[in-house]
């Protein structure tokens, strides 16, 4: 069992980053906290020496994969979670770097009204018809603009890679 002082130091140094990763993957604060706390329980019970931060972050990633796998397909698509979860062996920080790059690309390259439609869909979880109503726009036009945004991002990043 890991010494409590070492565990507390590890917890204080890494908790913020770990919880942010879990929230990013799962989108649910309660589930994210459960995953991170479970990681520290396993460290407390099974580790005799201090694990590396990379181990902690990888454990969060696998914990999130398990949570997603246990969800019904309907829940997965409603929350825009991967339906067939494949494991991405890239280091976690490279995957999160890409998420930051997507946000930067949208801010810099997506123009109006596309950008507003994009944020309504992905930040506010509105449907195409809800966005069309708010924008006072034809749903077909709204759909077309949304697809253009997604197409631009796909083109820029070449191939979307959301394996975990």
């Amino acid at each position, binding site marked *: 069992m890991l010494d409590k002082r070492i565990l507390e130091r590890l917890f204080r140094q890494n908790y913020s980053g770990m919880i942010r990763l879990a929230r990013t993957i799962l989108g649910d604060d309660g589930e994210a906290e459960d995953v991170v706390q479970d990681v520290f329980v396993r460290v407390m019970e099974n580790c005799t020496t201090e694990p590396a931060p990379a181990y902690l972050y990888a454990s969060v990633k696998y914990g999130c994969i398990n949570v997603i796998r246990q969800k019904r397909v*309907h829940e997965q698509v409603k929350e825009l979670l991967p*339906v067939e979860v494949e494991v991405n062996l890239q280091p976690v920080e490279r995957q999160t770097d890409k998420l930051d790059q997507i946000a930067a690309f949208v801010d810099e390259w997506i123009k109006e009204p596309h950008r507003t439609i994009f944020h309504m869909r992905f930040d506010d979880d509105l449907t195409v018809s809800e966005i069309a109503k708010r924008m006072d726009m034809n749903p077909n036009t709204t759909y077309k603009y949304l697809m253009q945004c997604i197409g631009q991002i796909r083109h820029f990043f070449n191939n979307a890679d959301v394996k975990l």
Partner: protein
Amino acid sequence: MTNSEDNIRKLMEMLDNPDAYSEQEIRDIIGQDEDTRETYRMMVEIKRSSRRSKNDAPVDVDAAWKRFEQTHYQRRHGNVWMRVAAGFIGLLFVSGISFAAITAVKHHNERKQAQEQPQTEIVTTTNAATVESEQSADQPVVFTNTQLEQILTEIAAFYNVKVEYKNADVRSLRFYYEWNRKAGVESVIDDLNHFSKVNITLNNNKITVEK
């Protein structure tokens, strides 16, 4: 419209109203062709990017550590203490029985020498059990050889949930259980499910017990 564009359109329509589709239909729509699969993957990644951007508020690490410490260290230490206490009580009980056996033999010859000691120790055991049930809210409540109905009545009242028994005979099953009142009701139900004789579930603030 090409076939792929048509498939992506179906994907977007499904995502706007997934409840109108069966699980298999959803899987079929997402997996219709590589372009549709990639579009869904990109949307998953964009959603993550959105969540990450919204998640940069400072995290209260101190509060999180306190929750962790409270849940995992105090319970653990509580259990250790209770195990030590249980061992001590058990030792007293066994030594009481042994002493009683020895004194019973001696009793034939030396009636005067076999007196208070075993009785005193049994009383000690009884007192310890009583003390257990009168602990403060911070300490676990220990049910020793207690009927499940009594255990669940106390637990249900504490968490303000109802109890339903699917089989009447499970009410009288007797268990030893250390109830940590700081734990959530789900965690308590999880603990109780370690007893192989019962299956306990919690739905809509109702505990259901069956064999």
